[in-house]
């Protein structure tokens, strides 16, 4: 333990699960940036934003084992907050007349506004968690669904502030592939540091066995609340990115179909590990992209050939069912990316 080389190896081993995810993503960004068309570049940005969101979702769902249907709520809160601060100075006083004057009559610089939005999402997650983290199991899941519906009803009808169910259009679009990659890396690093921290260990224990965790002095409520809040911050960041990638914010894009897709990504990859969250996003994004192209039509030997529109959704749903049936812990089955030596150690093939 004393020598420097030893500690270098230790550090390497510690960071390997993160590097094994981050480096391939960076390579994808570089390669598509150099050789890919606009369409594939946009797909990559969307994928990276999804990684921020799904990794954020994973911080709570993966570590606690409780399915949350409510995380789109915090994305929406952050996205709207960012829109209020940065969007459409000309239209704002007219269409969002209910905003407080300091927001209504001016724009706030991008960085502070993004920070505030993310903080707001985390704060909202904390307050929501204070109430519903008292519940366990299905009751907690169903309550997160109720939270999603409540936010949807409120934001769809709070016309003077959210423009109701209409899109807010014209947010500055500053999200590039590099920015999205940067945020995805931050999300992955944060999620990793969290899961190996004392808090992360504690909540994973509650996921494995609530009773044994309580007997070990672990608070179910607090450890879940911390995870819920942290993941609220992270999906909030995802919400801000999405808003400033599309340039529009609309409450209906933070509802059931989005929630389903995000959960599908997490579950296909395997909700038990960070690697699962990332791999799930990559796999589903690739599948969606491929089948969307097939639906759009390709030519084979001069023949136009295309799948009927809507096939892609059927295939995603069927794929998810197959994963659930035949590999119910997802592609990564709860494992992180590990060096072979480390894996053998965990399996008990190497002692010491």
């Amino acid at each position, binding site marked *: 333990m004393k020598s420097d080389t030893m500690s270098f190896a230790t550090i390497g081993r510690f960071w390997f699960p993160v590097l094994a995810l981050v480096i391939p993503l960076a390579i994808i960004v570089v390669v598509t940036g150099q050789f890919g068309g*606009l*369409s594939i570049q*946009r*797909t990559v940005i*969307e994928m990276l934003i999804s990684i921020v969101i799904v990794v954020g979702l994973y911080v709570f769902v993966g570590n606690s084992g409780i399915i949350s249907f409510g995380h789109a709520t915090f994305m929406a809160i952050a996205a709207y907050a960012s829109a209020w601060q940065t969007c*459409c100075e*000309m*239209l704002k006083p*007219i*269409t969002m*007349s209910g905003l407080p004057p300091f927001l209504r009559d001016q724009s706030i610089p991008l960085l502070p506004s993004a920070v505030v939005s993310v903080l707001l999402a985390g704060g909202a997650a904390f307050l929501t968690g204070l109430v519903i983290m008292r519940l366990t199991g299905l009751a907690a899941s169903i309550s997160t669904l109720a939270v999603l519906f409540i936010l949807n009803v409120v934001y*769809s*009808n709070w*016309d*003077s502030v959210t*423009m*109701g*169910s*209409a*899109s807010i*259009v*014209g947010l500055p*679009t500053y999200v590039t592939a590099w920015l999205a990659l940067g945020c995805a890396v931050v999300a992955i690093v944060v999620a990793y540091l969290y899961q190996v921290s004392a808090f992360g260990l504690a909540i994973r224990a509650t996921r494995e066995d609530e009773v044994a965790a309580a007997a070990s002095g672990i608070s179910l409520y607090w450890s879940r609340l911390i995870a819920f809040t942290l993941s609220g911050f992270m999906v909030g960041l995802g919400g801000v990115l*999405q808003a400033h*990638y*599309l*340039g*529009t914010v*609309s409450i*209906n*894009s933070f509802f059931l179909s989005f929630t389903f897709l995000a959960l599908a990504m997490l579950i296909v990859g395997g909700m038990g590990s960070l690697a699962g969250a990332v791999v799930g996003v990559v796999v589903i994004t690739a599948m969606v992209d491929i089948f*969307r192209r097939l*639906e*759009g*039509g390709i030519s084979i030997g001069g023949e*136009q050939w295309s799948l009927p*529109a*809507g096939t892609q959704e059927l295939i995603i749903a069927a794929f998810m069912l197959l994963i659930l049936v035949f590999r119910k812990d997802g592609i990564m089955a709860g494992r992180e990316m590990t060096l072979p030596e480390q894996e053998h150690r965990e399996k008990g093939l190497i002692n010491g």
Partner: protein
Amino acid sequence: MKSVAVAASAAIALLLPVTSVQAEEPIKIGFAIAESGWLSNYDSAPFKAAVMKIEEINKAGGLLGRQIEYSVMDTKTEQARAASVGAQLVDGGVDMLVVSCDYDFGAPAALAAKQAGKIAFSLCAADPKMGVQGVGPLAFTANSAAQSEGIAIAEYGQKKMNLKSVYVLEDLTIEYNKSACAGFRAAWAAGGGEETILGNDTFKNDDPSIASQITRLKGLATQPDAVFVCSFTPGGASAVRQLRAAGIDLPILANTAMVDNYWLNAVPGLKDFYLPAFMSLYGDDPRPEMNTFLESHKARYGEPPVSSYSVLGYSLVEQWAYAVEQAKTTDSEAVVGVMNTFKDQPFTAGPTSFTDQLHIQVDRPWLIMKVENDSFRAVEVYRNSFKPDVKLLFRVGQ
């Protein structure tokens, strides 16, 4: 990407004098519209009509002597996809981008066009934000503002049907209905006084039952002369069926989204149902140009349009092509400059006006239609005199 080169027959092409190198380059129109997902039902009819107009132009020698090519990409009724395909089409060098019928799903694509300095034209968004104050000075929509629908039917009810009082049932699910209701209330109050709106109630399009709304309506001390339902199918059809089933036989006024016969099965024998429409699909439109359009559509596709929104797509291409011809270029700034001077310019969809502030129609005449013998029938063309101001158009303080 479906890239369909629509070239006229070789014979015609050969006869055309080739005036410049530029003339050989076709003009490109991109369509970032929904071919799948729920919005595809609204986009497909006007899209087909737009294609028909493009073909007509090409057959007649093209635009500025150049043929028009078009390409379509599917937004899948997703905002992210709309932004992507919008960007891709613009990147592919289109001269004008046609976007979805709905503001929420059209805007992301329109923004991509805006960034490239290209015109974005929505097939039938009824929201003035698809214009200068929302997407920007290069965005237009071929439709009238939703408020105008409410205004037209309110005025028509008061002036032509002699209705003295009304009750408003508002579907809160989408903004379009809220805008139509706002227009209706403003025009009705202007014409007959606030107090003749005997009540307002709300429902959601997917509510399985509006029983409590009906109970409230029936519990009014004085019954109104009519009920205004601002909604869309299926919820709107369901509401009308439930109103009639509860024995409420008052005239029902509605907004344009409830036009066309396809939902009338839900309320067999429906009577006393009125709304403002773009045109009649049933051959009884008093305006001959509409019937010509109907016949051309039948000739081209073997069937009449599925929806009367269709004519908006046709007229969209017509309006843009006209402006391009006047400007003698497809350059966006120049074309917009021409379009902004339209003042009751006669197009197939009706007289059309744009200004540098407003890229949506607020007083284009409507065809009032009513339901009779399980079909919509044209009654008369009506043009509203009450014009929505900016506050009403953006529903400030509503």
